[in-house]
């Protein structure tokens, strides 16, 4: 059986990669992808802990399902906002969008 620590290492590395990508890139869609990677790392953590700490209880997996729901909603709304910004400013580069009002 895989030790819990290995799972935690993988999820931490995925999380760190997501943070790195979100901070590094200026393209809004790539930032959205990085955030999805972060949420995936969180899900991996939840499932890993659920498997090893409470193996008879599906609590961790249910929480992961809710995280997935919110991630899907976030992706849809975030993508819509990015498309509106791109249509108005002609760019998806976040450092060129300076105004909150349209």
């Amino acid at each position, binding site marked *: 059986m895989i030790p819990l620590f290995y799972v935690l290492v993988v999820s*931490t590395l995925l999380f760190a990669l997501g943070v790195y990508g979100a901070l*590094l890139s200026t393209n809004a*869609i790539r930032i959205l992808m990085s955030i999805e990677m972060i949420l995936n790392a969180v899900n991996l953590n939840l499932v890993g802990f659920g498997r090893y700490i409470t193996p008879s209880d599906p609590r961790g997996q249910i929480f992961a399902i809710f995280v*997935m729901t919110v991630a899907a909603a976030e992706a849809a709304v975030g993508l819509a906002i*990015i498309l509106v910004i791109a249509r108005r400013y*002609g760019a998806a580069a976040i450092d060129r969008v300076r105004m909150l009002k349209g």
Partner: protein
Amino acid sequence: MNLQLLAFMILSLVTLGAAFKVITARFITHAALYLALSFVGVAGLFLLLNADFLAAVQLLVYVGAITTMLIFAVMLSQVEEIRQGAAEEGFWRRILSARFGVIPLAVAAALAGVILYLYRFANWKAVPVAPDPNTTRSIGQAMFTTYLIPFEVASLVLLVAMIGAIVLTMKKEDRSR
């Protein structure tokens, strides 16, 4: 036993490598495809962790829906800059610049270091692992009894997100009708 560890290593390598390529890929569509590969790797890890239902949901929702939505949005948008994400500048030139490359790397590395340090010295109480439960049945039972209200709220969240996305992306001339 050992085979399981081998599968775990391969899946983690695929996941992390694809995640790295998401950040470094030149074109945004390539990044989206690498993202799908990373999601598939995570689904495999879920399978290894005995979460078969969650692995299926991961494949359906993330690979099937979210990645497809990203690719469609990128390819249907008229703005050239979205399509060629790395028209900004080369990734490798950017990563070597002091201000934009080093600070994110330092933040991410510090975060990973602190988290791994905490994990290393944490003392999880080890539970003797039960034989594989029927996860789909137990998830369904818990979802419609204990977690019924969160479940309904989650469906409401999805509905609101769907309506919000449609309203946001509506064109101006449609709005005046």
